[in-house]
C-alpha cells in the first residue's frame, strides 16, 4: 500500500490537513492522531525522523511550527518519504511563496488539490512541481 496517511499538525497538535488512504472510523482517526502527535511532538531535533507505531511507521519532518507526518508501511523507503515531505513543502512554497500555517488553513482546498496531484491510492503519482500545480493555476485563472 505504501503511504497510509498524510497529516499536518501545528505545535499545539491541531490538525491542519489530513488525508487518509485507508479507511479509519472517526474514533480510530482521533485516537491515532492523538497518539502519534503526542509521540512525535515530544521528540528532539537530535532524534531520528522515524517513529514506529503499531504495525507501521511514521516518517515526520518539522518546519517551524508545522509538523508533517506521513504514515507508511514497514517496508517503505523512509528517506524517500522524508524527501517527499520536503517536495510537498517546496511545492506549497512555490505556490504560496514561503508557505505558513495560515496559508494552509485558509486554502484548505488548494492544499487538498496539491496533495491529490502528488499521492493517489497511497502511491506517489507525480513529483514534477509544474505539473502538480497546473490544475490550481487553471482554477485561479478561472475565478
Amino acid at each position, binding site marked *: 500500500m505504501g503511504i497510509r496517511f498524510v497529516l499536518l499538525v501545528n505545535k499545539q497538535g491541531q490538525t491542519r490537513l489530513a488525508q487518509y488512504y485507508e479507511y479509519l472510523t472517526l474514533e480510530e482517526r482521533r485516537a491515532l492522531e492523538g497518539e502519534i502527535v503526542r509521540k512525535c511532538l515530544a521528540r528532539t531535533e537530535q*532524534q*531520528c525522523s522515524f517513529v514506529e507505531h503499531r504495525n507501521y511507521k511514521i516518517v515526520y519532518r518539522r518546519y517551524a511550527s508545522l509538523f508533517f507526518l506521513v504514515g507508511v*508501511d514497514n*517496508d517503505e523507503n523512509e528517506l524517500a518519504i*522524508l*524527501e517527499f515531505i520536503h517536495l510537498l513543502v517546496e511545492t506549497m512554497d512555490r505556490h504560496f511563496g514561503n508557505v505558513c500555517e495560515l496559508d494552509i488553513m485558509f486554502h*484548505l*482546498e488548494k492544499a487538498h488539490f496539491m496533495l491529490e496531484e502528488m499521492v*493517489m491510492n497511497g502511491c*506517489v503519482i507525480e513529483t514534477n512541481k509544474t505539473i502538480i500545480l497546473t490544475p490550481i493555476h487553471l482554477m485561479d485563472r478561472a475565478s
Partner: protein
Amino acid sequence: MALLGMRGLSVFISDVRNCQNKEQERLRIDKELGNIRTRFKNEKGLTPNEKKKYVWKMLYIYMLGYDVDFGHMEALSLISAPKYPEKQVGYIVTSCLLNESHEFLRMVINTVRNDIIGRNETFQCLALTMVGNIGGKEFAESLAPDVQRLLISSSCRPLVRKKAALCLLRLYRKNPDVVNIDGWSDRMSQLLDERDLGVLTSVMSLFVALVSNNNEAYWNCLPKCAKILERLARNQDIPQEYTYYGIPSPWLQVKTMKALQYFPTVEDPNTRRALFEVLQRILMGTDVVKNVNKNNASHAVLFEALALVMHLDAEKEMMSQCVALLGKFIAVREPNIRYLGLENMTRMLLITDVQDLIKRHQAQIVTSLKDPDISIRRRALDLLYGMCDVTNAKDIVEELLQYLSTADFVMREELALKAAILAEKFAPDLSWYVDVILQLIDKAGDFVSDDIWYRVVQFVTNNEDLQPYAAAKAREYLDKPALHETMVKVSAYILGEYSHLLARRPGCNPKEIFTIINEKLPTVSKPTVAILLSTYAKILMHTEPSDPELQEQIWAIFRKYESYIDVEIQQRAVEYFVLSRKGAALADVLAEMPKFPERQSALLKKAEDAEVDTAEQSAIKLRSQQQTSNALVVTDQQPVNGPLPINQLGLVRIPSQKMEASSHNQGLTKENGAVSKVDPEPAPSADFLGDLLGPLAIEGPPAATVSAEQNMISGLEATPNAADALALATVGDQSNSVQPIVNIAERFHALCLKDSGVLYEDPYMQIGIKSEWRAHHGHLVLFLGNKNTSPLLSVRAVILPPTHLKVELSLVPETIPPRAQVQCPLEVVNLRASRDIAVLDFSYKFGTTVVSVKLRLPAVLNKFLQPKSVSAEEFFPQWKSLSGPPLKLQEVVRVVKPMSLPEMTNLFTSLHLGVIPGLDTNSNNLVSCTGFYSESTRAMLCLIRVETDPSDRTQLRITIASGDPTLTFELKEFIKEHLINIPTPTPAPAPSPALAAAALQPQSPITRAGYTDPGVMLAGLL
C-alpha cells in the same frame, strides 16, 4: 482571496481558530453544523457556490475530528454538477468523507463512469482519482475495462494515463480478476517503455502490486526495469523538473528497485551484469554532502540499492562491501542514517548468510541499545535478537538483562520476551537459562508473562540435573526483600517440588523453607495463594521424619482457607488437609510432577503472533518464507553456525518439534516421569517373545530372512537375545520402553532437503547430522550425543548401504561419556542412480535398557544433483536430441499434493532441481535443469518439464530426459514421490513379526536377491 471567494468559510475557520478552549470550539462547531443542516433542508434555495461552501465546512469540521453524519448526499450531488469547480469539490470531499462500503457511493457509479469515458480530460482525472482512492468491488466490476483502455490508449494524455494506472491498481486490489495475467505481461512490458516519468512512476506502482502476487508471469518485464534504473542512475534523458537536488527522481529509482526485489533472481547474464554495474556505482558513488535534502535523497537510493544487492545474492565480495557500508552507517552521528543502518542490517540477517560479518559490529550495536532515541533502541534490540546464536547468546542476553533495568516501560515487555526466547533457544547450559529467567523475573517481574515462568518450570521438571540447582537458586531469591509476586510463584513451585534435594544445606530444612515462603502469604494474590497451598502440601509430604510442629502450622493454614471466598483455594485447602492426614497415601497423590510433554514454546508462538501482516507482502517477507534454510537463526531451528552442541540441542530443539499422536504421548509422559524412581522393567525374555510372535512369523514374508543377514553383516553376537528381539521388534516404532521423542520420518524427510539437523532423538541420546556434497562424493558427520549424566555403553553403529552407494563409516567408540558428543565422519560415494536408501543400524545400552533403532540416512538421490542454469539456446537442442523412451520418459501423475507453482518451484529448488523461469512460454509449466553425479555416469545433464493444470492441481504431466535410462527412470520416480505426498508417519499396525522372527533365526540363508537392499526393505516396512 480566501478560498476562492467563499467568505463565509474563511470567517468560520478563523472563528474556530480564535476559540480559547475546546469547549468553545465545540459550541462554535455545533452552531455551524446546525446552520448547515437547516440550509441543506431547503436545498432549493442554495446556489451551487453556497453548496460548495457548506461542503468544505463539513470537510473542515470532519478534519478537526467531529462527526459529520449528514450532508453526504449534498457532497455526492456535486459530482453530477456540470461545472468543473463544483464537480471537483464533490469528488474530493466525497473521497474524504465516505469509504468504499458506503451505500451512497453505488448511486454515483454511472455518473463516475460517464466522466471516465467522457471527452473532458479534467473530469476524467477527477473521477479516476476518486475511484482510485475509495473505489470498491462494485467499481472494480463495472469500471475496470474502461480504466484499462485509458491506461493503454495512445491517444490519452499522460495526465489521464497516470491516474488510470493507479486507479487500476486499486481495482486490482479489490478484485484481482480484473487484470488478466496472460495478456497483461505483454502490456505491462510495453507500459514500462513509457518515456513520461509521471506515467512511469504510477505504472511502476501498479507493476509492483502485480509482480508481488505473481513474479513468474512478469519475467519479460525484468530487463525493462533494469533499463529504467539504468536510465535514471545515469541521468539519461531526464527532464530537469524530475530531478530532485540533482538526483533523477529518487522516488522512481526506489520504486524500480523495489519491483526488482520481487524477482527471485536475475538469470540473464547481460541484464545481471548491467544491473550490478549500476548498483555498484550507487554503492560506491554516494558521498555525504552538506545539503540535507540531497543527502537524504541519495541515501534513499543507496539503501534501496543495498536491499536489492542483498536480495540478488551478489558475490561474497559485494556482500561484505554492503556489510562494511552498513557498519559505517551504524556508527555515524546522523540519527536517520544510524537508524536505517540498523534496520537494514536486520533485514540482511533475514536473507543472506552474513552473520559472521555482522557479528563484528556487535559492540557498536550494543551501544545503540543505549541511544537516547527509542526508535534507534528498538532497531538495535531487533538486530541483536536476530543476530543472536550459540556463540554470542551469553553476551547478548546479558546486555539485554542489563538494559532491562533502565529500559522504557513501553519496551520492557518486548525486551523480557526476547531475552527469554534467546535464553531458551541458545542456552549453552540449562543452569544459565534458569539464571537468566530468574533475573528477568527479579528485574522486570511486571513484564514477565506467565508463559515465561511456566516454561522455566517445564525445563526444570524435565531435567533432573537441573532440579537441585534451580531449587537452590529459588531459595536464594527468597532471601531478597521486596520480591515480585511472579518470583514468589516460581520459587514456591520449584521449592515445593524439589526443596527436599537441598535438605542438608543450611537454611533449607523443610521448616525453614516453609517459614520463608509463608512470610509471603499475607501479601500475595489469589492465584499465588493457591500455588503456596500446593507447596505446603508438598513440603509436608517430603518431611521425613514428620515434624509435628510443622504439620500443625500447615494444617492451621489449610483450615483457615477451608472457608475462603475463592473456590479454587477453598478446594485445595480442604483436599490437602484431608489428604495430609492419610499418611502414606499422601506420597502417592503428591508424587513429583511427571515430565511435561514436549511442546512448542508458547513464547515463540507469541513472538510469531506479534508479527502483524501488512496489506501487501513485502519482498523481504516473501523471500524469507521461500528460503527457510537461510532463516534458520531467526526461526526456531537449532543453530547452524558452529558445531552442534548436543546437550543444548535438546533444549534448542524443543520448540520446533511437532508431537506425534497424543495418545502415544501420554504414555510416554508417564513412563518418563517414572524413570527416576522406578527401575526399567526387566526386558522380556527371548522365549516369551518367541512364543508370542513365533507362530505369526511362519506366515511372514520371505523378506524376513534379510534382517538375519543384517545381523551377520553388522557383526552382532550370533545368539539372539532379548534385547535384540525387542529392539528389532520396535523398528515399527511401537512397544519399546524407549521411544524416540522426535518424529523420525519427518526428520528424515527434512534432512533430505537440507544438510544439517537432528536425525534422531530419544530421552537418552540424540543423533545429529551434518553433510557436504561435492559431485558424486558426500562427506557426512554423525554427531552422537549423550544427554545424560551416565555413560551410554555398547554403542554400535553400522551402515547398511544399498548397492549403488559406497559408504565408509569411521570407528564409533563403544562408550559415549556423560553429556559428551562424539563425531563420526562418514564418506559416501555414489556409483549410479537409484532411489534406494542407506540405513544406519544403531544401538546402545543405557543402564539395563538396550535401545536399537534403524534410521534411514539422508544420502538420497537429490544430494547428488546440482542445479544448472541453461539458456534456451542450450536447452532446446538437448531436449530435442533426447527423444522418447528410455532416455526421455513422460508420465501423467495423479493424486498430486495440490500446490501452487511457487510452492512447486520451492520444492524443486530444495530438491536441487534448478527451475529455469521463462523457458517455457506457458506460465503454468515449470522447466528445470540439473546435473547428476555418479561414478558410472559422471556429470550428466537432466532436463525436466512439468505441465500443470491450473484448474486441477492434483494432476500434472512430467517429462524427464537424460542420457542414462536408469537415471531418467529413477529421477522420475524420485520426483513423483515428492510430488505425491510428503511422507507422514503412520503408526505401524504391530511389531513386525517378520523381523522378530528373523532375530530368532539368525542363520537363515538369503533367499531373495531382490530384497538384499536394506533401504528397499525398510522403506517397505515404513
